[in-house]
């Protein structure tokens, strides 16, 4: 294997400084705060417990939140109505609004009891649409938004299939994480797992900066040049330690697809702090003991001998070092690390409840306290006890009382961290694209095409604050895409022709509200929309205008 050489050259260090310089010139990285965790939780019990049943988990969530309300001296708001619940659970579990027929079926079958809601939740959780929606979410969280060419590569190189398969089979989260970090696929079906590292294209700092939030729920960018100034537990040695675990990796696009090779030598360097002091980049990360490794002496050269690798290499499988840093990271740092469970629990909670128990969801450090610390502890322990079952966690959260609260903010409550009302959040680009397709066509149609435009325009997922921007409004008002979609609603089964074919404006109004807002209009809305249509003779053009005004209204734009 070539390309790995000469460990002790000061290359990496200079590289780091150049990195700094590049950062200050090109402004390439997002900054941010870092990590941490109350040590009490970090040393959570590893004692295995019998997993609790679903009802018990839901009851625990309810009790902890209830205690939170009492401690803060407030009452949560009422439950939302059935239609709002159905819309919400469709958006959260399958990434789109319900079709009219689906909504009506739910209402007809009943949705008032927890058993009835449970049936709907289960049906959605088992669907292929659930797989696709949550693959979108995890793709964004793990890989970030990207140009369309990058999305195409993620598909081409099986990352997307790998992700979907993991969700489809409810693969334990810890296994999934280990597979993408190790990047040594057990068989062809796992090949796509390599792409998490491979897409970062040998940029080991980028890899480290991606792993910290994805796996541990913390941000480490600040620690590149110095120990984190605000978060004591995040050290500069952790930043460079995490880099070191991965800096012997090298992409190779081989016969069996993209592989991330690993050298048995190299990757030793020193990092400089702002005062100019140098420190070796040991294999250290957070609370875990430094992984010991023989460092070559100052002038000693390491040669890349065959005996440093395990036997049994074939053409299609890269050789593996006897001492594999990547593997050590997986087995010594990641495996059973309590933050892995906490980070996932907090993130799924944020996706479903609009805000993490720790907020922002990827800054789970000592300066960001959880709003409900005991709940986070409890859910994290339970998540581990359950064998890291993500689907079970999702099921429990959407079955909780808090998930079902109305989104209307009670007058006396202004702190979203109370979860005393359902927190509205904007639809992701994909959710918006699919919901528009469901509304206008009754099905998803050419999903990927619509998605590609909307995810570029609406990249946000779990923003710290919900602030709309004018560019989005301009896109919806004047961009060609939404207009094209409205014009494409022209088959007999599509919304616009169906409405145009109706006899009365009243019928049109009723169907529009049902399709777009999953509800019936109130008297004022009814009068206004009806008048709008009748002034214009109920033409297809006027129907498209009404459809536009509903698709672009806040009620459609938000999950509430």
């Amino acid at each position: 294997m070539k390309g790995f050489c000469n460990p002790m050259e000061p290359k990496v260090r200079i590289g780091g400084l150049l990195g700094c310089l590049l950062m200050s010139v090109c402004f390439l990285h997002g900054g941010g705060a870092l990590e941490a965790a109350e040590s009490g939780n970090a040393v959570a019990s590893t004692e295995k417990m019998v997993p609790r049943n679903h009802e018990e988990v839901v009851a625990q969530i309810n009790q902890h939140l209830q205690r939170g309300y009492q401690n803060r001296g407030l009452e949560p708001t009422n439950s939302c109505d059935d239609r709002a619940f159905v819309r919400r659970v469709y958006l959260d579990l399958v990434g789109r609004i319900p079709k009219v027929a689906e909504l009506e079926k739910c209402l007809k079958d009943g949705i008032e009891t927890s058993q009835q809601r449970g049936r709907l939740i289960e049906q959605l959780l088992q669907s292929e649409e659930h797989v696709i929606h949550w693959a979108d979410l995890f793709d964004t969280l793990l890989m970030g938004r990207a140009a369309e060419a990058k999305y195409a590569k993620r598909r081409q190189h099986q990352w997307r299939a790998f992700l979907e398969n993991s969700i489809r089979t409810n693969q334990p989260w810890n296994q999934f994480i280990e597979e993408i970090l190790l990047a040594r696929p057990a068989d062809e079906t796992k090949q796509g797992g390599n792409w998490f590292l491979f897409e970062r294209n040998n940029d080991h700092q980028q890899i480290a900066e991606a792993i910290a939030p994805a796996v541990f729920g913390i941000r480490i960018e600040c620690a590149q040049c110095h120990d984190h100034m605000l978060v004591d537990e995040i050290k500069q040695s952790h930043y460079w330690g995490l880099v070191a675990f991965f800096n012997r990796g090298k992409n190779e696009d081989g016969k069996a697809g993209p592989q991330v090779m690993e050298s048995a030598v190299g990757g030793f360097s020193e990092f400089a702090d702002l005062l100019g002091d140098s420190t070796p980049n040991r294999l250290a990360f957070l609370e875990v003991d430094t992984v010991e490794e023989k460092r070559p002496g100052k002038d000693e050269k390491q040669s890349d001998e065959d005996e440093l690798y395990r036997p049994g290499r074939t053409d299609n499988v890269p050789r593996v070092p006897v001492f594999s840093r990547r593997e050590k990271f997986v087995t010594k740092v990641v495996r059973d690390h309590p933050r892995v469970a906490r980070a996932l629990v907090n993130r799924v909670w944020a996706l479903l409840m609009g805000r993490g128990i720790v907020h922002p969801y990827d800054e789970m450090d000592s300066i960001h306290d959880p709003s409900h610390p005991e709940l986070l502890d409890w859910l994290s322990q339970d998540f581990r006890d359950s064998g890291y079952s993500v689907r079970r966690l999702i099921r429990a959260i959407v079955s909780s009382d808090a998930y079902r609260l109305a989104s209307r903010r009670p007058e006396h409550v202004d702190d979203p961290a109370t979860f005393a009302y359902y927190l509205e959040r904007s639809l992701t680009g994909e959710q918006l694209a699919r919901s528009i397709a469901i509304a206008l066509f009754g099905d998803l149609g050419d999903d990927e095409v619509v998605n590609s435009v909307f995810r570029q325009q609406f990249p946000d997922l779990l923003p710290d604050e919900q602030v709309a921007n004018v560019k989005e409004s301009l896109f919806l008002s004047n961009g060609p895409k939404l207009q094209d979609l409205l014009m494409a609603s022209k088959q007999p089964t599509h919304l616009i022709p169906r409405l145009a074919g109706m006899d009365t404006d009243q019928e049109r109004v009723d169907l529009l509200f049902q399709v777009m807002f999953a509800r019936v209009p109130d008297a004022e809305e009814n009068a206004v929309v009806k008048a709008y249509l009748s002034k214009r003779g109920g033409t297809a053009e006027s129907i498209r205008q009404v459809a536009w005004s509903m698709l672009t209204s806040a009620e459609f734009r938000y999950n509430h």
Partner: protein
Amino acid sequence: MKKYQQSPSRDSHHSRNAMQHSCGSAEHTVHRRLFLQGTMAAGAASTGSFSGLFSVPALADVAKKSGKKCILLWLCGAPSQFETWDPKPGTETGGPFPAIPTNLSGVKVSSLMPQCATIMDKLAVVRSMKTEPGEHFQGIDVLTRGDKPRPPFTRPILGSVIAQQLGQLDSPVPQFVLLDPCPEGNEFKQFKAGNWAGWLGAEYGPIRAGGNYAIPNINRLSEISEVDHADREALRQFLSRKFENDQRSEAAASHNAAFNRVNGLMSCAPLFDLNQLPEKDRQRYGGGAFAQHALQARHLIENGSTFVMVANGMPWDNHVFQHEMHQMLVPELDNVLFQLINDLEDRGMLQDTLVIAMGEFGRTPWLNDARGRDHYPKAWSMAMAGGGIKGGVVHGATDPLGFEVVDGQVDNRNLFATIFEALGIDPHQEYELPGLPTFHRVENDTQPIREILV
């Protein structure tokens, strides 16, 4: 008073009329009446001009009427005081650049600022800033909002306060514009993703432009008539406002505020087209994105914007090769300030337009191992000129090595009180908003820097 506009004037009466219709005051009962009575189409005769014909000069009428304005050159990343306003040549860590005399007797600035040295009589320089935060995010927060955070309440950013106090909400020209050609910028990028308008509400947030100098989708699609465009928007407003009110929804309020701006923005699309500015002006300012946007800021202010903030990512954070980097950055700043202040003066606008140039803190007197200067909030400089500010004043001083402020120490509160006072805004007024605890524009009755106020 000189004419504000650049391009030849058109019939402004017609356009003024149109403006009143396009300004998006958007009270839904009005719209409701309009489309229930079917008068939208009739009204369209007068709104006919709002997206296409609206000319820049017409907007200048509004600009003329109004008062004070402000341009903030936001030097994000934090420039070095030593290579700008407070040189310490010949000292151990003063750096390689000499100090040069200015047209103010006894006052020197860095040799990287030869042009500003000729207009020091128009500038007020503060050499005695001492602030708390030493990290970018917190520094940006305090120096753009004026005070430390107090969660869960978000203090509005300077531009939002000034747009709210001095701006004309019924103007189609955006009152608060952020020109930011580089959307990136480490902590600044993170900061930009946050809530700028804070408790004032999203309608006082900035319009963001820059980069390719254009705002996408600013023109109406040709297949939609102006009448239809206006009518369906009125219906959207009705439905969406209702939801906002019924839900008590802040998210929906921000959504609606964003839509409210669409028509106004469409009507002033030419203002965001840099190609409409004279080539010789563009050359004078220089080719860099920051310089071009500073010119655009002048143009926006001339045509009715109240607050324009010019940033360019976070270029000033030179932990590495500080001198080499500042050797590129400071001369650009020098020229931009010089051109901007002269242009405003030539147009008779300097006395009403406050120009501020600053970052979120200063840089260390010592160099680090990478020949960079690190963050230093303990003693740093900034400069202002124009509207309400006395030129030719240097306030405060640091010790010979620039470690400490030795005279006239001021902080972010003093600075914000000065800015507000200069613009004729009461610095100490209390915000009276429902559900908001006691907050003042500047807390603790902190006094402005009187020496530099007119």
